[in-house]
Structures are given as structure tokens and as C-alpha cells.
């Protein structure tokens, strides 16, 4: 992003009544254009929020860091530079660079490093932190020539690496990936000596833009895609299966088709990280299945579901896969070596991310793999990631038992041996709860998304009831599949948040949740803050089933009404903890 684009973006009106999103910028240099870029990037990522970026005091990194808790922003953006570890590492300080001073600089840096670790662990518990460790070239402090690594510089860098290593897994903390920054902003083009001396801002504009872009993604990560649909011929393998036969397709060095093997390796890694993998291929069904079962495939057959190999349009295969996965088109990526096939799918599904597999160009395939990592990347893996694919396959089997209305028979539900676990505990706060709230579309009470800090404040309020529901039956576990949160007053529960994974539909879990809440809290009424969204039809249908009318906002369900309308449920209920 150029500075002029960022400034023009800041001039665009924010919608009236937009909730503020407050960010504290912690650095010791003049925040200047970095503040502008952070603001613009967050405005783009959070168009419904009014972004406020507040810098701290010039020259006071450690004071600014310690004041974060008092300021209590929605997020802290922390940009450390070498001079924050010891002022002598900055151009503006005239402190000693003589060989005798180096040990003292290192001692200071180590002491600051320990101070930083303590601060991150303390602050990260209550305020999400996005951290950038020193990105500028080290000044020529050491006595060695530039081409020779000095023990002093190596020790300093080791200290910063150790600091990153301790901060990255800390609760609430996220650290800029130095390798990604290196790709975006070459080291030699980062430092602006003139600007540093003239105004106290040490970054060249493209570097400030790159740092701000990565920090903003840490503050507000883009939603990871859920599924990848891939072509087979000249994509998963080299060659056209129908022309060269089962033994003619390849993915190895000998046939100069090794990058297809690397692509398979990436697909398998994504699958094991919870990404859904499907195939849309113009092929003979039986032959494609045989090829996918070849023993030397890097991508095992079990990692792929479903396989749509036929001679129909690819968009039709994508439609079937979307239905199987029960996800929106904006949640998937389609990879094919044919620009025509990509265009055909894109025309039918404008929100699908369509990517060309550049079969003739290993360098471009390498770049594609990085792109896939970004599209599907997440900060941590959950139990649900490990069981998603298998639970989908089981859901398909369940659907085969469904009647004409898509209803599962009572006999099937009764025999499923279902067990739901209700967890009302807030400590430790389960990160999966916020993940579900922010990615669930169909069974979602009102579509509201929460920033991490906002969620923490809402849930940890003593008046808030939080319920996280897990499910399993004799076909296997679905993991944590529903979250409900609201405020309890007297004998009324006002529900602000209620989401349920689409994998858990048709099991009457929503009925069971309300039933348990009425009973557990002796409720007379549950008020559901429903708002229609373009995607939450299943929530509306459920509420209309209970309320039997056009929905008012909020929806009020009395105990009497619920008792008369609720459907029989068959799950055994376990309760984990008291909230």
C-alpha cells in the first residue's frame, strides 16, 4: 500500500454508529507513517468498525508498553527496534560504540529481553498483542567487517530469537514472521537515515507499509479457507490419465514432474491440519479412483472426500462438493491447470478463490504453495481439525438415512448413542469458542463477529453465561460444535451469541441446548438476540419451528412455549464444570 492510498482510505467515512476498535501503538520512534499504515490496514480488515490508533510517547518504548494495561485497548501493536534494547544501537544516540562497550550493550539487551518476556506474559492475558521484533539492519557497532559475523552481533540476534521464541506461544501474543517480512521488504531498503534524523521515523515507506500490513494481519487475521478442490490431470499428477493410462501419469524427478509430488505433499499436510480436500476432475470415475489408489501416491486416498470425477462441467462438481461439505463458496479454493476450467468455475461461483496450477513452472508452483499456506493458515490446530474430515464422511452416511425433508429418523437418532458434553467453565477460556463464533455462518444467531479482546471482556464479565457444547455418538466424535453466551438476570437468559457447526445439524442439539438451559437455571424465558443474515437461514428455520411465526427481534421463548414445541432428544448429557 502506498502512503497516499493509506491516507485516502483514512478519509473515507466510517458508517455511523460503528463500534470503535481501539489499538495502542507501542514504539519509541515517531509513529508517523507506521501509524497511518496500521490504521489503513485495520480499516480495510474491519470495515464495520471505527478504528482508533493511539501512539505512546516518543522515546519511551518501555513506558508505553507498561501503560498498555491502563489504556486497555482492543489490541496492542508493539514495534521494537534495536535502540529499545540499548539506546546505543540507534543512530540518534551518541553513546559509546568502542569495543569496551559491547559487553555492556549485551548485558542491557539481555536485561530488556527478560523485562519484555515478563511484560508479554502479563499483558497478553488481557490484551491481544501483535509484536514486531527489530527489523532494521544492526548499526555498525561491532569491530568486525560487515562480511564477517561477530560474536557480539550473533549474541544480540540470539537474544532477539530467544525473545521471539518465548513470546510467540505466550497467551494473547502473536509475532511477525521475519521470513515473510524479508520477502516483502529487502533488508537493504528498510532504514531511512534522513527521515530518522529529520523526524525520528526510521523506516522507508515501503518497509513501514510491509511491517504495518503484517502486524494488522496479526491483529485481525483473515478467516482461513475451509476446503480445497483440486483438479487431477496435470495438477495432482503430470499427464492426462485418459490418454497415458494408470502407469503413464507421474510425480517424480525422473519424469521431471517432481513438483506435482510436492503439491501432493502440501495437500496431505493441509488435510492433516483440518482442511477439507475434494477432487473435481474431468475423468473416467473408475480410472480416477484407481489412480488415486496407486500405492506410490504421496496424497493418500483417505485424505480426499469427495471425488467428483466425471465428464460434466467442473462447476457442477464444485456444486456437489460444496453441498457435501456444507460450506459457502467463499470458504473454498479451486486449483486447476486449465485457465478455461478456472474461468468456468469462477463464473458460476464468483466468491471461490480460483488458482492456476502452473504446471510448466516449478518456481511458480513453489509460490502457489506459499499462497496456499496463507489461505489456509491458522494460529493453532484444534482437536476438531483432526476429526473434521471423518465426521463429514459420517455425516454423509447419516444423511443417507435421512427422509425426504432431510430429517434424520427418530430410530436413527435413538440408536446413535449420542452424548453431549456441556462446559460452562470460563477458565481456562477455550480458544475454540471464539473460533466457532467467528467462522460459523449458517446456525448463527445474528452473525456478529468478535475481536479477541472484545470476546474476552464479554465472556469474563461475571454476569455472562458461557456454554461450549461437544458431541459424540457411536460413529465418532464431532468435538466442540456449539457455543452459546448470554447474560442471566433473575429467571431470564438473554442470549447474544449462539452458533453451531453445520456438521452437527439434524441431531436436535439446538433443542437439547435450550432444554438444558431452561432446566439448569430454572428459566422462565430465554431471549434470543436474533438478526437475519444472508446465510443464517437454518437458525431462522429453527426459531420459526418454535415460535411458529415471522420472527420478532429479539425472539422471546417462554418455558411454557418451549415445552409445548420442543422435539424429543436422545442424547445423554454430561456436564464438565460449573461456570
Amino acid at each position, binding site marked *: 500500500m502506498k*502512503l*497516499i492510498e493509506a491516507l485516502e482510505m483514512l478519509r473515507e467515512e466510517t458508517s455511523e454508529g460503528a463500534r470503535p476498535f481501539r489499538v495502542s501503538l507501542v514504539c519509541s520512534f515517531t509513529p508517523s507513517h507506521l501509524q497511518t499504515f496500521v490504521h489503513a490496514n485495520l480499516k480495510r480488515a474491519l470495515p464495520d468498525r471505527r478504528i482508533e490508533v493511539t501512539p505512546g510517547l516518543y522515546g519511551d518504548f518501555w513506558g508505553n508498553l507498561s501503560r498498555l494495561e491502563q489504556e486497555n485497548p482492543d489490541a496492542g501493536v508493539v514495534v521494537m527496534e534495536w535502540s529499545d534494547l540499548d539506546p546505543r544501537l540507534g543512530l540518534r544516540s551518541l553513546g559509546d560504540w568502542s569495543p569496551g562497550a559491547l559487553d555492556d550493550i549485551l548485558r542491557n539487551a539481555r536485561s530488556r529481553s527478560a523485562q519484555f518476556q515478563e511484560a508479554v506474559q502479563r499483558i497478553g492475558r488481557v490484551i491481544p498483542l501483535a509484536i514486531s521484533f527489530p527489523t532494521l539492519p544492526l548499526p555498525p557497532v561491532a569491530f568486525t567487517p560487515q562480511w564477517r559475523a561477530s560474536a557480539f552481533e550473533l549474541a544480540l540476534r540470539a537474544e532477539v530469537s530467544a525473545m521471539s521464541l518465548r513470546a510467540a506461544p505466550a497467551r494473547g501474543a502473536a509475532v511477525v514472521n521475519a521470513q515473510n517480512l524479508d520477502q516483502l521488504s529487502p533488508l537493504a531498503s528498510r532504514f531511512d537515515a534522513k527521515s530518522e534524523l529529520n523526524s525520528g521515523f526510521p523506516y522507508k*515507506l515501503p518497509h513501514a507499509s510491509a511491517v504495518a500490513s503484517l502486524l494488522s494481519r496479526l491483529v485481525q487475521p483473515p478467516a482461513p479457507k475451509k476446503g480445497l478442490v483440486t483438479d487431477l490431470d496435470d495438477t495432482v499428477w503430470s499427464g492426462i490419465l485418459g490418454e497415458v493410462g494408470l502407469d503413464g501419469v507421474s510425480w517424480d524427478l525422473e519424469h521431471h514432474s517432481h513438483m506435482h509430488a510436492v503439491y501432493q505433499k502440501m495437500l496431505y499436510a493441509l488435510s492433516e491440519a483440518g482442511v477439507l480436500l475434494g477432487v473435481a476432475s474431468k475423468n473416467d470415475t473408475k480410472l480416477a479412483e484407481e489412480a488415486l489408489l496407486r500405492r506410490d501416491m504421496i496424497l493418500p486416498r483417505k485424505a480426499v472426500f469427495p471425488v467428483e470425477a466425471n465428464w460434466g462441467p467442473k462447476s457442477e462438481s464444485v456444486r456437489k462438493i460444496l453441498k457435501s461439505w456444507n460450506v459457502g463458496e467463499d470458504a473454498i479454493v479451486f486449483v486447476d491447470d486449465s485457465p478455461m476450467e478456472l474461468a468456468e468455475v469462477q463464473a458460476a461461483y464468483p466468491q471461490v478463490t480460483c488458482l492456476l496450477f502452473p504446471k510448466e513452472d516449478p518456481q511458480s508452483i513453489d509460490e502457489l504453495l506459499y499462497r496456499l499456506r496463507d489461505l489456509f493458515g491458522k494460529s493453532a490446530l484444534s482437536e476438531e481439525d483432526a476429526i473434521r474430515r471423518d465426521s463429514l464422511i459420517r455425516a454423509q452416511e447419516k444423511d443417507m438415512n435421512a427422509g425426504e425433508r432431510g430429517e434424520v429418523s427418530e430410530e436413527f437418532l435413538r440408536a446413535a448413542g449420542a452424548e453431549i458434553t456441556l462446559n460452562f467453565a470460563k477458565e481456562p477460556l477455550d480458544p475454540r469458542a471464539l473460533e466457532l463464533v467467528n467462522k460459523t455462518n449458517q446456525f448463527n444467531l445474528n452473525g456478529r463477529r468478535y475481536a479477541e479482546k472484545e470476546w474476552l471482556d464479554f465472556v469474563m464479565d461475571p454476569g455472562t453465561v458461557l456454554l461450549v457444547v461437544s458431541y459424540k455418538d457411536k460413529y465418532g466424535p464431532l468435538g466442540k460444535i456449539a457455543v452459546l453466551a448470554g447474560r442471566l438476570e433473575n429467571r431470564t437468559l438473554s442470549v447474544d451469541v449462539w452458533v453451531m457447526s453445520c456438521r452437527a445439524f439434524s441431531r436436535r442439539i439446538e433443542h437439547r441446548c435450550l432444554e438444558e438451559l431452561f432446566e439448569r437455571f430454572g428459566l422462565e424465558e430465554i431471549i434470543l438476540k436474533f438478526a437475519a443474515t444472508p446465510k443464517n437461514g437454518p437458525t431462522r428455520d429453527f426459531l420459526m419451528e418454535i415460535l411458529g411465526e415471522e420472527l420478532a427481534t429479539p425472539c422471546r421463548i417462554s418455558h411454557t412455549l418451549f415445552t409445548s414445541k420442543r422435539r424429543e432428544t436422545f442424547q445423554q448429557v454430561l456436564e464438565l464444570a460449573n461456570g
Partner: protein
Amino acid sequence: MVDTQVRLERCFAAALPTLSAAQIANASPASVAAWDSVASVTLFALVEEEFGVEIEVQDMQELLSFENLLGYLRRKTGESAA
């Protein structure tokens, strides 16, 4: 090709967003209350980015008006005033 004046007007509008198009043409720190040191730093950064020039620190004081900056850039780019 967008000419130097139009591009410079865009820089001024970004650095000093309260100015109208008419005010930009006569803008200087003396005539614009919002033109403080931060606005100057932003304006010079915008101009350097937009025109790919490096403005020397010692030249900055003299260039603190729309008219002077426009003249400077025209000399740099070889564009005539007409």
C-alpha cells in the same frame, strides 16, 4: 499522462485533508492553520513517493508552499508550466 500539478494536488489533499481544491493552489504554512511539522513530514513523504524524488533537508524550508513545490517538481521533471 496525469500532469505534475494534478498529482501534487492529490498529495496536498492527502496531507491536508481539510483544504478545498481552491485553497490548495495558494496553500502555505502561513495560510493554513493545520499545516504543522507533522503535515510537512507527511507532505514531503507523499511527494517523494509520488514523484520518485529525494528532497534534500536543506531545500525543504523553501519548498513549503504549493507554488514552490510545483515549481521545484516541474524543474525536476522537465515539465513546462503551460
